[in-house]
């Protein structure tokens, strides 16, 4: 690495030295608890649409915790946060736009 990259890496490392260790254990515990809730719901024989909504909601919260705390994105500068997240979410929205009308057509008309 050249001098610029080394300086940047050292600055990032210096910031990370101040992260509290306890918060990582809290995030880990929260992720385990949410997983336990998901498994509990599986045994409740809920309607599939309702269960899918709850499970995906919990998955999004878990994903946000992993990205924010474990991947340290919440400590990055705003430009980094917005560009990475907007790009991924935008592409996934595009996939959804193609997926849902066709999926709806299948449910309504049946597979021919």
């Amino acid at each position, binding site marked *: *690495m*050249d*001098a*610029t*990259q080394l*300086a*940047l*890496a050292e600055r*990032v*490392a*210096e910031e*990370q*030295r101040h*992260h509290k*260790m306890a918060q*990582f*254990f809290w995030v*880990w515990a929260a*992720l*385990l608890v949410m*997983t336990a809730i*998901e*498994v509990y*719901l*599986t*045994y409740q*024989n809920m309607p*599939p649409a309702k*269960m*899918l909504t709850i*499970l*995906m909601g*919990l*998955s999004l919260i*878990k*994903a946000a915790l*992993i*990205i924010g*705390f*474990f*991947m*340290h994105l919440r400590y*990055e*500068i705003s*430009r*980094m946060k917005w*560009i*990475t997240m907007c*790009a*991924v979410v935008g*592409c*996934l929205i595009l*996939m*959804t736009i193609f*997926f849902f009308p*066709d*999926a709806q057509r*299948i*449910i309504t008309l049946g*597979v021919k």
Partner: protein
Amino acid sequence: MADTVVSHDVPSVYEPSLFGTYSKKIGMWLFLMSDSLTFGALLYAYSYGRISLGATWQTPFHSASIINATIMTAFLLTSSLTMVLAVRASVQHNAKMQTLWLLATIACGAGFVILHGMEWSKLIAEGLTLPMFPAVPGHEANAEFVNVTKVVPQFPATFFTLTGMHMLHVTLGIIYLGVVALRRKFIPILVGLWLIAWLATPSYSPFHYGAHVLLLGAIVCGIILWLKPKVYDSSDVEVAGLYWHFVDLVWMFIFPLVYLMSARILPT
């Protein structure tokens, strides 16, 4: 005309970065963004198949499979915690703890892969298989899902592609972390693991043919370490950690969508 001095200085140490961090990390984020779209497409393909086939879609996961997948999830979540602790040890220049936490992460990842491989073996023995997989002797006649491949081929196709792609990522992550933790010492370990998995398992086992990923990993890592031997610093550990957390993140969607939504729980 007066001479002018054109400066071509190397960038200053204090030159600001567009994203406020070093290039390796930005490169890994870009890779992870593209990889998330790969998994997004696979998850959409699985969901599309499920919606389009309605009631004929298989729900093969009994309570034992759900418990197995839950333990696998716990392994991955714990591995993410140990990975964070490895990054923390690396920025504090504690090389011993860094290596120990990386090895703990590898152990949790290996536990995930072994449990997942056992789940695959069980499903394949029950008849939920792909034409490319070798048949399990003695299980054809009474297999529970013997007709699934013919009636609903989309289920095994999307299930094995999605979970197989994820298992491949976990295996590559283990190799990546092993090289960061142990460098050249990890190559003979990889070759040894490949030999054990290849020779000690029957030819129809997923571990038998999946083990070749380890051999391929050993060859590629051997070439990389031979061409560019180096001591990995805290930035390398952090970048490896980003990859590992991404693998964990993807499983947070596969686990509910594939396992929990396809559970066969009998009412008590």
